[in-house]
């Protein structure tokens, strides 16, 4: 599998390590009213879609950047690769 790194171009997936669902970027507010149940969801509950899935990959053997990879879990096709920092910033979070 080849991951098209947004800065470095196509790189072999063996250079990356997989963390999991990209929703891990959206850490709940610990001061929120439902923080307890929100953190239970955040830590333990995952969707397991057969199809398109946004995932976090770490370029461990490269520039050590975190990426959000949109991958089809059935076909392994990758439709989009973004820097996780760009995704977080697009959601209004600072660097």
């Amino acid at each position, binding site marked *: 599998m080849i991951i098209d790194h947004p800065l470095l171009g196509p790189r072999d997936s063996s250079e990356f390590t997989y963390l999991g669902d990209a929703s891990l970027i959206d850490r709940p507010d610990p001061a929120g009213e439902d923080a307890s149940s929100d953190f239970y969801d955040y830590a333990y509950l995952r969707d397991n879609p057969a199809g398109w899935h946004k995932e976090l990959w770490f370029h461990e*053997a*490269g520039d050590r950047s975190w990426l959000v990879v949109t991958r089809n879990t059935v076909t392994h096709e990758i439709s989009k690769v973004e820097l996780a920092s760009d995704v977080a910033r697009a959601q209004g979070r600072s660097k």
Partner: protein
Amino acid sequence: MLDLKPTPAIGVPDQTIGTVTIAETDGVALASVAARKGQLVASEATLKSRLGAVPPVGGAVFGDAETGFWTGSDQWMITASFDSHENLADQWKDELGAAASVTEQSGGWVVFDVTGADMLAMCELLCSVAIRRMETGDVQRTMVHQMGCFVICCDAGLHIRIIGPRASALSLHHALIGAATAVA
């Protein structure tokens, strides 16, 4: 002032196997520069003034006395001769101030220069870098025998510099010798 000599990681003499020469290059001072939040422009200005240009993504800039290469987003490694730049990190920190974090790296790395016509075939055995497509000044971080190393293309097709973890210098040297022997 005491005239101190840098201690090499291994201290092996240069070795030529077939057409490939593997040389441990001691006396390289290294420092890493990481731009702080919102300080990219100021950090790049210093890089430009000292190196002549800002190292591009996946690339190096060979300045007169110092070389800088890209290591990650908003991060670079600077190398220079230890003889003239023993306090490399201090020099950069003085200039960059609060714009970037500068870390002394000289004691963390071992530097090997690999030259010769069979370097290409040897490099292909060692790591997954597309060495035949690399041009002079291209830099890639990769794995050599499970060791994270930087591969710098100093002269396309003829000379690469491999910067790897100093604590694994002997293992890295063993890997280089093994690959050179295999293609000789």
